[in-house]
């Protein structure tokens, strides 16, 4: 099994979700994250004092998939999340030994 982790722009999350659903993925775990990278943060000013906020809001997705689906899923996410502007994010794949569905105790592919 593989774990596909993706960091994407927040307003693209909905598109990614739809693309994944269309592809057949039935479960995703999402966390709100912040990214530091090439994309610049912004500056706020309070009573004349400037504050640079370096981090940029991102959505972080995790999808556990079968080995054979991993490549496709990466492609689906990358396509749906793309705007072509700096800060579109990353997708990475890492190995997973096993996955269990808590409700039933099922393991492996059956647990997805």
């Amino acid at each position, binding site marked *: 099994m593989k774990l596909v982790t993706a960091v994407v*722009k*927040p*307003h693209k*999350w*909905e*598109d990614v*979700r739809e693309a994944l659903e269309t592809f057949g993925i039935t479960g995703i775990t999402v966390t*709100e994250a912040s990214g530091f990278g090439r994309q610049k943060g912004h500056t706020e000013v309070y009573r004349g004092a400037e504050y640079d*906020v370096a981090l940029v*809001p991102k959505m972080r997705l995790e999808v556990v998939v079968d080995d054979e689906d991993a490549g496709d899923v990466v492609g689906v996410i990358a396509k749906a999340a793309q*705007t072509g502007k700096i800060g579109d994010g990353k997708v990475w794949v890492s190995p997973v030994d096993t996955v269990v569905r808590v409700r039933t105790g099922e393991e492996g592919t059956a647990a997805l």
Partner: protein
Amino acid sequence: MSGNTAWVLMSAALVMLMTPGLALFYGGMTRAKGVLNMMMMSFAALAIVSVLWVIYGYSITFGESDSQLFGSFDHIGLHGLNGAAVLSFVAFQLMFAIITPALISGAVADRAKFIGWCVFVVLWVSLIYFPVANWVFDFGADGALGDDAGWIVAWGVQDFAGGTAVHVNAGAAALALALVLGKRLGWKRDPMRPHNLPLVLLGAALLWFGWFGFNAGSALAANGLAATAFINTQAAASAAIIGWLVVEQVRDGRPTSLGAASGAVAGLVAITPACAFVSPLGAVLLGVLAGALCALAVGLKWRFGFDDSLDVVGVHLVGGAFGSIALGFLSLEGGLLYEGRDIALLGKQTVAVLAVGTFSFVGAFIIGKAIDMTIGFRLDEDSEVEGIDLNEHAESGYDLTAATRGHRGLPGTPPVGAPEPQDARHDAGDKGSVNA
């Protein structure tokens, strides 16, 4: 003349503001998933009681009658009432009728069906509050305290602004309702800490501000009596903060902001019946004792095992009873600590507290049970766990995820009622029709 009208109308506005203040005070104290329901219980009281008051509430409370127990049906629809003095009194007293049931809601946080609450407000205010208000606030024809006045006030009980009619009344009903509805799921086990303490402090501040209208406005004139009530109100609230915080410092090692807010309210409750009858130093003493007493009293629910969620009993019943009975000692007109002492006063004060408390407790218990057994009063378990706001109001209090961010925090589908879905679903093409 016009000064008195200005004062009473302004006081009425101040007392109106107390109910939203209470909504904030209570709302901030619940968990985030129940803040809206908690606030809605106050707003429901505001809406329902105002309408009932106009239709029949004023009439059955203050309508001319020979009874010392209730008014009459002479002023249905506020018919036949004229003049600034009477009409401003109508407005002023309405606000008391609103906040009293609203106070009760603190006992039933997070678990009362909204429709059950609404029915409770209608019944309780009609069957319990309106009569009790007659007993305490109806001075009879020409304010002469004759045979047509409410029995409590006519009997010589001192209750300037409603220690019995409002606070004991609400506190006893709160206890009844806490028993009827039972405990919140996870009570004693889960932390159910206040989700927004600045809101609690703001609510307490608005209550305090409005309480000047409540207490000093009860003079029904802008005179020395009003000024005295005003000063005593301020003194007692302040002293009670100190009383409460000292208890916390000694017992818990830290004075808390929730303690300060609670102390202020406890002091305001206790001074309510007393504000025109005590000296400023008496008010300070009354306040500091009330603050300390209520700080201890809010622990009772842990001992006796009733989930009075936001401590209506510990603050309003205890504080209101204490303020009323303490007049037996501290009143400048008959208190045992002063010349002219009159032991009968202490007795009368106590009887009034017991009478109102018992009447209200029993009444609220019966009404609550009746609702529970008919339309149901307690929320189902799943809704309570998921959150009453979502399930009773289809709303959630906050969506702050996007605070410093340029996106929507939680994704959703298009709103229903949008006949032609936007064709452009993707960012690029979707500017909406600027200059449509």
